[in-house]
């Protein structure tokens, strides 16, 4: 008789780490299953200088094209950090030829929390009420008041640096002191404050990077390459923060190389009873049992596991009596913005590599404000900097004087890069592609996803508004753009197992618990009902901690 754990958590990344921490701290014997290899801080390469890399950071281009033709589309999948991204041949998926989708994935202990973008923005009721207000899809079953204490809980633990603004659309959080704007960014901030007082606000990015020592982790030393790891544990990821706490409880079993095939459903009890795993190395099948199961495998992987877990009772996928499993896939649309050269102090330059930029919170379609021709809104990330030696290619001349001229910093440049909300659409969905298996013999996903007119309208407006703001700041050589990014590129994929009040139209309830199967929880991005325009990880983490608290209570009450 195999051991029955109190809880199994599938995935060890952003949300899996949180589930592990919360469940073990509540005293549950918890098994965390991670598909990929174990990594430790010894795998971190943030302090390796370019001259110790074979291609000096230009990447092993031919190898990347051969092994990771999809993953390399992510800026972080480079010569240093490509080891944190999957091999595309071992981990295939399919799309229709004219509907590209980028599934950018990390399979290792820590998952994508190792190389995430670290931007942290709370949602507000502008976001939680959006679907109801617009009559689109279904309403969120929760409001800001439900999640606010859990944002506090998560932020206090992980440490978020940021500036309080008092904006209703972007609630303030539990902040450590903010990083500094450089003097180019201050010029643009002041121009926005002058031309759009109270409406368009430029602030330093709110990020999961410590500016002060916090919970045994050191403040950032500005080496600048968080996606390569951090030996001082200064940015948040699960191996730096949540998993060590879970381990300290003595209740954690972490099993890497555990590729989850599907969940085991007990028809008589109408519960999930365990997990079917393919060992990542030996490829042997193995099963694990638990009283409660948390899927924290990432939006698409959690959907895939449930779809691959179909039974006679759930022929179209486990916990899918609503028919919504796999549907309503979303990803932020990104890449509407503008660049320009700004007039900032010529005798100043920023020094040190700040792994963070600026943020301009959403200013379109706010409560009580003017309505745009499109729904929802967008926010900007970006920043200012001065050209370095790279400008030498087009700086006329060569030789000693030219080399000396390159010692002076070049022009001040500024860029706004927009991230817009993606509307839920039932037609954007995933299904199992029965014609293809991955390297472990598990059927893969076929992904059908395209952006609609509203998403592109947001990015067009984002490019115009960015150019307008640069003009207001006195910029020259202003270049507006709308990058034609396919969905998936923002790596903010959401939906496929949405929350909701009605079991007929949603997969999960207000506590991320499957309507159909009370001991099954899904707390990664799959649960999202809409996308807002803010980076989503902090919301996933808060929902995970909240769902864990609920599950522990339900277990104590013997409901599950």
């Amino acid at each position, binding site marked *: 008789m195999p051991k029955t754990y109190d809880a199994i958590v599938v995935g060890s990344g952003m949300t899996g780490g949180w589930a592990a921490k919360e469940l073990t701290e509540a005293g549950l014997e918890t098994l965390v299953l991670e598909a990929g290899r174990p990594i430790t801080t010894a795998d971190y390469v943030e302090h390796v200088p370019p001259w110790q890399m074979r291609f000096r950071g230009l990447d092993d281009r031919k190898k990347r094209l051969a092994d990771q033709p999809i993953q390399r589309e992510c800026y972080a999948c480079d010569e240093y950090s490509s080891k944190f991204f999957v091999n595309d041949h071992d981990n295939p998926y399919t799309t229709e030829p004219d509907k590209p989708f980028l599934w950018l994935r990390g399979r290792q202990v820590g998952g994508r929390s190792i190389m995430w973008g670290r931007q942290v923005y709370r949602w507000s009721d502008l976001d939680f009420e959006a679907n109801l207000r617009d009559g689109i899809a279904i309403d969120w079953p929760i409001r800001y008041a439900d999640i606010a204490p859990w944002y506090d809980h998560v932020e206090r633990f992980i440490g978020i640096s940021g500036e309080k603004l008092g904006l209703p659309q972007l609630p303030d959080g539990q902040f450590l002191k903010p990083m500094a704007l450089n003097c180019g960014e201050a010029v643009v901030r002041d121009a926005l404050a002058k031309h759009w007082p109270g409406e368009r606000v430029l602030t330093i990015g709110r990020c999961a990077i410590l500016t002060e020592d916090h919970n045994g982790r050191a403040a950032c030393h500005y080496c600048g390459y968080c996606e390569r790891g951090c030996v001082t544990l200064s940015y948040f990821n699960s191996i730096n923060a949540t998993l060590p706490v879970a381990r300290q409880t003595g209740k954690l079993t972490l099993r890497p190389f555990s590729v989850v095939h599907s969940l085991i459903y007990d028809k008589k009890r109408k519960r999930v009873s365990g997990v079917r795993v393919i060992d990542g190395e030996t490829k042997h099948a193995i099963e694990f049992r638990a009283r409660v199961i948390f899927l924290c495998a990432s939006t698409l992987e959690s959907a895939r596991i449930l779809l691959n877990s179909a039974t006679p009772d759930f022929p179209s996928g486990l916990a899918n009596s609503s028919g919504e499993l796999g549907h309503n896939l979303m990803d932020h649309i990104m890449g509407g913005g503008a660049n320009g050269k700004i007039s900032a102090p010529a005798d100043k330059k920023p020094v040190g590599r700040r792994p963070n930029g600026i943020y301009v919170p959403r200013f379109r379609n706010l409560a009580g404000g003017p309505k745009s021709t499109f729904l929802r809104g967008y926010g900007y990330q970006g920043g200012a900097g001065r050209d370095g030696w790279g400008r030498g290619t087009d700086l006329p001349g*060569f030789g000693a004087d030219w080399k000396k001229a390159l010692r002076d910093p070049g022009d001040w440049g500024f860029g706004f890069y927009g991230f817009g909300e993606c509307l839920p659409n039932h037609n954007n969905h995933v299904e199992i592609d029965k014609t293809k298996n991955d390297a472990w013999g598990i059927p893969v996903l076929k992904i059908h996803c395209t952006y609609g007119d509203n998403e592109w309208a947001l990015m067009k407006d984002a490019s115009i508004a960015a150019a307008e703001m640069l003009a207001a700041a006195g910029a020259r050589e202003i270049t507006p753009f709308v990058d034609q990014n396919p969905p998936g590129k923002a790596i903010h994929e959401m939906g496929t197992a949405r929350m909701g009040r009605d079991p007929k139209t949603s997969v999960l309830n207000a506590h991320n618990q499957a309507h159909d199967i009370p001991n099954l929880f899904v707390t990664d991005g799959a649960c999202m009902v809409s996308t807002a325009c803010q980076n989503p990880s902090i919301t996933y983490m808060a929902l995970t901690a909240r769902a864990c608290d609920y599950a522990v209570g339900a277990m104590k009450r013997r409901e599950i």
Partner: protein
Amino acid sequence: MDRRSALGLLTATMAVASAPDELLSLGRSLHQRIVNGRRRVLNAQQDASLLVLTDLILPATDTPGAKAAGVNAFIDLLLAEWLDTEDRDRFLKGLGDVDTRARAAFGKDFLQGTPEQQAALLVAFDDEAARWKASPEATRGPEPFYRTLKWVTLFGYFTSEVGATQEEHYAIIPGRYVPCAPADTLAPSE
């Protein structure tokens, strides 16, 4: 400069003209490649030409130059392992054209010219690259060989240990972020 633009620059197509004498010179370079054991793609003459060209672009001053940084060896690595065959051949063709231009200008291969003759030729290349950049051609490619060379020399130099530490004062661990430091602070501009 990010990796994507670097890739764009290095793979930017350059015009190729084929002619019998170029086939002959290809045969010659293949022979010299066998003779030269130090480099994997560059023959001895190409290697020596690149050493001079890169060091003219970034010479030793109060800090070491491209020669000390081994930029020619880094270019050889990119030619051997990074570039596709077509782009590698275009680069080598462009390098060969430097000799063609040298013979037209001063009647000798580039390496046999005086430092003044070599520098004068680079002035011409530099002017041509600037004119190309300002022309409508720049949005369509192909970029001149010299512009590719100038970029890869900069990249190879500033990512080398001597270039990064002695010329740019690059620190692996800056330790702090100074948002508005004096512009002459000995640190890279970020």
